[in-house]
């Protein structure tokens, strides 16, 4: 177990192994958290396994897509900060076609987590990146957990992690959550993004069609003018162009604008509201 590794206290404090010794799995104790972390990813990529590795909870995991349809929550403490971790349903996209996609999308959008982990199956990188790109449109506070690296190695797949991180504009951590491999590095990355030490410059999808590009640019400018604090104006513009009623509704009610200002307490209350839906 990585949590029990005995490291001399003089070891360099930036080394993830050093801090892993300080991981405190808090289970269901989520009182007074400093940061909210969302856990998203395609179905069957090992989200629940990552969840268990971080919180010490034993949420049931299963080898089939669609196992988690509701949210599970847990807590952990790392480097003197308390984190609340929310395990979202596994989805292939965030277009909110079905209830589980809507749960995941609404949480990332309205719950405004401090960090969103996207768990990615390394053996199916291309398909999994579709979701990563969609999450990156909504938020720049993303950590990609490149999970199932053992299987990728077994299949002879080699992934250039640094290049992937550079292309995506977000930290990428290779993991084997089942064995706890890469969990210290993942914690370090989460902590850095939460504290603002790492600031992502997320890749944004290029829309080749000129008229599409023009419409997006025009509408993004309008959204930005009306809601200067919105972190994801371009994404909101895209959703509106796609006729997304839920996003239009949120814009009318001012839900998108308000959330970006709220204090931690207000946001906690807001999380509750989203959770009860």
């Amino acid at each position, binding site marked *: 177990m990585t949590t029990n590794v005995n490291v001399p206290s003089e070891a360099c404090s930036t080394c993830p192994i050093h801090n892993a010794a300080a991981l405190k799995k808090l289970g269901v104790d989520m009182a007074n958290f400093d940061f909210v972390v969302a856990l998203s990813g395609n179905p069957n990529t090992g989200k629940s396994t990552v969840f268990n590795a971080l919180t010490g909870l034993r949420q049931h995991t299963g080898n*089939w897509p669609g196992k988690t349809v509701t949210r599970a929550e847990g807590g952990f403490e790392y480097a003197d900060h308390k984190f609340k971790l929310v395990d979202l349903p596994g989805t292939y996209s965030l277009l909110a076609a079905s209830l589980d996609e809507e749960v995941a999308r609404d949480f990332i959008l309205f719950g405004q987590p401090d960090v969103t982990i996207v768990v990615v199956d390394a053996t199916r990188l291309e398909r999994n990146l579709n979701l990563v790109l969609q999450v990156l449109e909504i938020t720049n506070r993303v950590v990609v957990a490149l999970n199932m690296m053992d299987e990728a190695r077994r299949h002879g797949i080699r992934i250039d992690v640094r290049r992937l991180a550079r292309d995506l504009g977000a930290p990428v951590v290779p993991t084997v959550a089942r064995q706890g491999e890469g969990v210290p590095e993942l914690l370090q990355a989460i902590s850095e993004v939460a504290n603002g030490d790492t600031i992502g410059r997320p890749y944004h999808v290029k829309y080749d069609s000129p008229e599409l590009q023009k419409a997006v640019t025009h509408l993004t400018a309008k959204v930005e003018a009306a809601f200067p604090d919105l972190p994801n104006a371009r994404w909101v513009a895209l959703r509106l162009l796609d006729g997304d009623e839920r996003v239009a509704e949120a814009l*009318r009610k*001012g839900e998108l604008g308000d959330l970006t200002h709220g204090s931690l307490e207000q946001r906690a209350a807001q999380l509750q509201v989203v959770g009860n839906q």
Partner: protein
Amino acid sequence: MTIQSSASAENIIQTAQSLRWEVGANFHEKLMESIYTDAARIAERAITRPGEKPRFDFDRTLDRIVTSRVWGFPIMVLLLMVVFWLTISGANVPSSMLAALFLDTIHPFLKNLAANIGMPWWLDGLLIDGMYLAMAWVISVMLPPMAIFFPLFTLLEDFGYLPRVAFNLDNMFRKAGAHGKQALSMTMGFGCNAAGVVATRIIDSPRERLIAIITNNFALCNGRWPTQILIATLFIGVLAPAHFAGLVSATAVVGIALLGILLTFLTSSFLSKTWLKGEVSTFSLELPPYRPPRIWQTIYTSVIDRTLIVLWRAVVFAIPAGAVIWLIANITITDTSIAEHLINFLNPFGLLLGLNGVILVAYIVAIPANEIVIPTVLMLTVLVTGATGVGEGAGVMFELESSTETLSLLQTGGWTLLTAVNLMLFSLLHNPCSTTIYTIYKETGSARWTLVAALAPVLMGFTVTFFVAQIWRLIEGLL
């Protein structure tokens, strides 16, 4: 929020609408295409596959066997049989050990204690004979089979077999006008119907989701497995020579489970041709790679996560039910207990269905939890037959020393092979437990559909048992 920002929001939405016209009808496709293209390009840049060589693919070979047209179904049924056979034959010994502890050691001790501190008889009866015994019964009957069944099932799940089951059943669900993913929510229902109903959230179309919710009750939940297992062992296993008894009982239980699956298809098909008409949606089901199950972790999580939680639920419901049973057996109106009034009232109807009044009363008492059907049946049978020498008196739940004793008690109560068969059928076909009904209401948000989901199975149960009883008696008359 200011009025100004709301006005500009409206303005933005209107602009969006007019811009959408300019971009063209296939906006959504263009959007998705762009995402896919970029994802492919980024993935391409990051991945290197040094010297790709064709290799023996274990997953593909195994998939070809377990999802083959010929072998897929037999393998599925065989695996199910093995799981139940292990559960039935493995649960006997620990069950009787637990019963000996709870009923022969702790129960007399508590009774003595109550007598010594001078507890009034009614309080002693309500607390110890009613509540404590109900709890003890549920634990000793349910814990061992669940502690065997759940880990086995979870191992199959962890290995990656469940999506293959869904793959096998997908075509049949489509033919029934339902969603292929219903196979997964149905499989969850074999554990717990309330969980199965929640699992239907993976189905996107509301029509198909409703079908999946309504038919989930046909998946035998673990509250009903003990009833099936016990009755099959007592009445059907004994028809075979001793060394085949376990196998024959397991076959009977699997038969009922398969009947449930068949009824799932028939009901789904009926609903999709009548009130829930519509297109079948397509979906892609991913067959995840097989993974070596992590045995110790699986056993640990399935015991903690499933076994103990389900057991806790059963205990929570059994304790008040135990009190109710004791009360209706001990409060008398015109010299007859309430329980006997109820039983006598329902008896003619029960006999018409090839059941009896005791079974019907037990199913009313057991609405909160199916787990307590069998203890209630035994206790009420003692009350009605006035059998002496068994049990501890009116309204006392107990476990009999051996299965032969249970059998002879039930036979005194007028039970025949027909009663046993119809009880197994009725256990499959009756209303879901109150937790499931509440979950259905929460998920559908409709009182009307909740009512349909709750009442349709009972009506089907009445119909099926009625016809089985009539035909059975007709054949018996001819012989």
